């Protein structure tokens, strides 16, 4: 095993870690506010990738415009889903919303299959980001480095917005105690809708970033969502910082595991989850389950 191969694998790990981090961050924000697991998260991620593809095909929009506009469009779809469907089940056991969002994921996936088949279509790497950079120890595709940078910036921005801004303070207050927050005159209902839309928009952003790295297909969401769930279980639900760190960490560990023993690549994350569950059932950053009603 050469140092350059090791470095290459670490970079590969950071790339998959970037997706895990963005997706589990969105799941965590939604879970923190609403106590629901958003099973449709992978479907919104897939819609993000298709959004980028369709924006280029139909409107001729560049990758950078897609990066800006597609998450907004995906977030809007999320807001519609929250207002029309998810909201109605909020008073019930959170399992019902897990089931509902599973149904939503199924409908979105098969809807896209009807129009785009299962084969998928490639999305060109944005002009100016093609080729590889020599980093001394190894050469690495430029686009993937930019991808990791954008995802990291987005994660830090979200963390900052929630921990350090007045709006973030309201969200944290509503997460902690919705009734009391409402009593202080803060519109928790609107805040909840916006939070869901925002979490889903992050999945859309991840989808746009993923489009140039993979074939854009209707099933790409259901491929990644289960792994993301495992990441969320490892990190513990609801922690913003925890999901970002765990996302990147798990990505790198899985990539390094593949260096040592290649066949384990796909299963390592799930083994990691089993080990964490045995040692620390609440996850690395999780709180005891008392709050999970």
């Amino acid at each position, binding site marked *: 095993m050469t140092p350059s191969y090791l470095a290459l694998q670490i970079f590969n790990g950071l790339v998959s870690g970037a997706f895990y981090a963005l997706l589990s961050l969105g799941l965590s924000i939604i879970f923190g506010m609403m106590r629901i697991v958003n099973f449709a998260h992978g479907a919104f991620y897939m819609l993000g990738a298709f959004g980028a593809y369709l924006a280029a095909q139909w409107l001729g929009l560049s990758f950078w415009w897609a990066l800006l506009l597609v998450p907004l469009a995906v977030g809007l779809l999320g807001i519609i889903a929250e207002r029309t469907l998810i909201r109605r089940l909020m008073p019930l*056991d959170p*399992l019902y919303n897990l089931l509902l969002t599973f*149904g*939503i994921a199924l409908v979105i996936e098969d809807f896209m*299959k*009807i129009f785009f088949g299962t084969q998928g279509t490639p999305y060109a790497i944005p002009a100016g980001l093609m080729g590889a950079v020599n980093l001394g120890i190894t050469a690495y595709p430029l686009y993937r480095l930019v991808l990791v940078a954008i995802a990291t910036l987005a994660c830090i921005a979200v963390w900052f917005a929630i921990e350090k801004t007045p709006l973030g303070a309201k969200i944290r207050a509503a997460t902690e105690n919705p009734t009391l927050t409402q009593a202080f005159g803060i519109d928790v209902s609107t805040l909840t809708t916006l939070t869901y839309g925002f979490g889903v928009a992050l999945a859309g952003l991840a989808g746009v970033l993923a489009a140039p790295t993979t074939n854009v297909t209707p099933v790409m969401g259901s491929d990644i969502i*289960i792994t993301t*769930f495992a990441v969320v*279980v490892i990190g513990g639900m609801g922690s913003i910082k925890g999901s970002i760190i765990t996302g990147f960490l798990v990505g790198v560990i899985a990539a390094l595991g593949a260096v040592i023993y290649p066949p384990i690549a796909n299963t390592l994350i799930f083994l990691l989850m089993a080990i964490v569950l045995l040692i620390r059932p609440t996850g690395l950053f999780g709180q005891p389950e008392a709050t999970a009603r």
Partner: protein
Amino acid sequence: MIARAIGSDRRTMLWLGLIALAAGLLLPHVVYIGLATDIVIWALFAAAFDMLLGYTGLLSFGHAMFWGGASYVTGLLILRAHWTFVPAVLAGVVGAVAMAALVGAVSIRRQGIYFAMITLAFGQMLYFLTNQFGEWTGGQDGLQGVPRPVVFGHMTLENDQVFYYLVLALTALSIVFMRRVVTSPFGQVLGAIRENEPRAMSLGYRANVYKLVAFIISAAFAGLAGSLFVIAHRFTSLDTLDWHTSGQVVIMTLLGGMGTLFGPLFGAAFYLVINDRLSTLANASNPLLAQFGHSPGLVLGVIFIVVVSVFRRGIVGELLNALRR
């Protein structure tokens, strides 16, 4: 709590059981034999799933690992070692039980959505492992050409009608057994845990042990169904281990009505008949219509969303509720 077992009084249940049995006997005269066999096998799977969801309150999103895992165990033993029906099916069930004990030991301490996510992840792990060890499992190709094994020494199961009634008998016996389990004192404790776990624990019941046993029993019957599935189809594939298969049994159970044990039987029938009707569209000349037939998740997903949003008792649950008024 996710569900309340309704219509659990003896007389209603007896009637429902008789209706289900009559439907099972008539089924091959209504739909083609392959679909009839599928309906009964999936009905068994869904009933096993309901024992866990409706009566214990545990939502497993990884039941495909027992269904698919058992189908591979049974399929391999018949294909490679020429085992006969009874030992091959039993081995599939044992395999499912062993997996449930392992997975349950790790995950049973977590509740609700966590349990759902953890079982989902373990199910996916088995999917990847099965794909990985392609030299044994056939990888992407699955196990092809599994012959129908002999039963009771010399009787072959080549005749689809004979095989159907064998499957029906096994399913009926399994459901009688599961009904006994949920009405037994053990089942009463499961109900208590579902309604209020801390309270059941404060009464001295070791909730995790009860839940683990329920998980294992449910997995055993899911495994039985999976073993029958590979024999019925003469093949099995990675699809049986896909998490969409876990989702499929969830949909069937909720469609029929969870916590009714008989509801999921009708849910399975409803699901598979719609699926079958849609798949006839797949040969349509219009490409959009053909693709629509290939994507039953659109129609079934919408139905599922309506059921979860409005008719949470499911078909049989809502009917029972209407009759009671």
